């Protein structure tokens, strides 16, 4: 009888330790969005549900991981790496156990696309008044780029193609000079305004990146 009682108590104790309501968590991940960009501070969040942060250990291969606290990290690819592997381990009862890993593809930043002020760079004919209203060359990575970046145009050349002549100008920074603007004012339908040899740079990267940007072709309507 005593042994039966002991057995019952043992069972009760055993189940009280091993049975508890697990916290249900679902992780939703876009399979192809495992990209880390060079020259950027890529922000990464790492957490292990139900495990305190001080028992979570993270290893990184192919890059550098800097903790910002609260499970937030900055990930920078190391020079020449094309892949980054992140391994997450937890320490339980003195034993380190690998609980998960993930790899990222390392990619260059895209080349920004320049445009004249608010006119999209699509080569479609523009009204002279719309062209005259613009004063600066802008560049951007387009709305599809995940990070909020800020690229600038640092230098450019402009050409005006008329029916029988071609006039060349050098720009100053990203601004259209008075000389260029005065020639734009004389454009006629069928003339073409070109911006080329456009140089740009990025302001939000961790190191300086200079770009050679593609040209802008604006036919006058």
């Amino acid at each position, binding site marked *: *009888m005593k042994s*039966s009682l002991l*057995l*019952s108590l043992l*069972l*009760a104790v055993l*189940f009280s330790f*091993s*049975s*508890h309501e*697990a*916290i*249900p*968590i*679902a*992780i*939703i*991940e*876009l*399979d*192809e*969005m*495992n*990209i880390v960009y060079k020259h950027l501070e890529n922000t*990464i*969040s*790492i*957490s*292990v*549900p139900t*495990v305190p942060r001080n028992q*979570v250990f993270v290893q990184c291969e192919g890059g550098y991981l800097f903790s910002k606290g609260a499970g937030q990290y900055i*990930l920078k690819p190391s020079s020449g790496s094309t892949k980054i592997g992140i391994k997450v381990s937890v320490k339980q009862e003195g034993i380190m*156990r690998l*609980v*998960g890993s993930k790899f*990222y593809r390392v*990619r260059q930043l895209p*080349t920004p*696309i320049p445009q004249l002020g608010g006119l999209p*760079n*699509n*080569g*479609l004919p523009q009204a002279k008044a719309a062209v005259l209203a613009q004063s600066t060359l802008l560049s951007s990575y*387009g709305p*599809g780029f*995940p*990070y909020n970046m800020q690229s600038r145009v640092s230098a450019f050349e402009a050409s005006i*193609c008329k*029916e029988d002549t*071609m006039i060349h100008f050098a720009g100053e920074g990203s601004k259209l000079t008075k000389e260029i603007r005065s020639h734009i004012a004389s454009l006629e339908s*069928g003339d*073409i305004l070109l911006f*080329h040899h456009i140089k740009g740079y990025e302001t939000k990267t961790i190191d300086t990146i200079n770009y*050679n940007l*593609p*040209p*802008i*072709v604006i*036919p006058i309507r």
Partner: protein
Amino acid sequence: MKIKIVLLLSCIILLASSFTPITLIPVKPTITADAMNIIYAHIQNPIHIGYNNFSARKTEVIAIGISLGKKSAMGNKYNLIADAGAKEAKISIVKNKKNGEQRKISSQIFRIRELPAPLVQLGGIGNDGKAISKQLLFAQTHLNAKAHQSFPYQLDFKIVSYELEIRTKAGKEIHKMDNDKFPLKLKNDIRKMESGDLLLFTNIAYSVTNSTDGFEGIAPSFFIEVE
């Protein structure tokens, strides 16, 4: 008698335990690149849902701003397609309770963005503003369109049409092409070109052949100066 009570107690404990989920599955970490929560319009965006400590069968996936094309038999992989005009999508995982109620387990918001325009160039000639020899121009057969290598997905572009303006000191000639070809008849005109003359490629219409809706757009124009 006492033995019976003890046995009964044991049975009750065992029964109670069988109703309680036992945590034997190891916890999975979440590793997320915070800014990469983007769903691109016009293409299929594959996702997978990792279920920590419970079964996918007991859950329902609710999507707003996107349609879920179910992909896997396990119920944890989907191909998302953004709704036309939507700017944001939300995916929620809910657990169906026995009483018919639903309990939200996780939800995530995604930004919906347009596809980037392709980089178009004549054959293998880069658009870097350098003057190009006529011999090199003759060697090209078609326009190439590709996404920048930084873009996460494979996009298959096709040039649908373009306009080529040949600007020489003698005047200009405009050719309208309804494919990506750079044909021989254009090359005959190029033969007459002189140093400083221009080839202007404008109104370049393209389609994304692996898009879900036959997406078409206009790519940035470019020009080539003859050496």
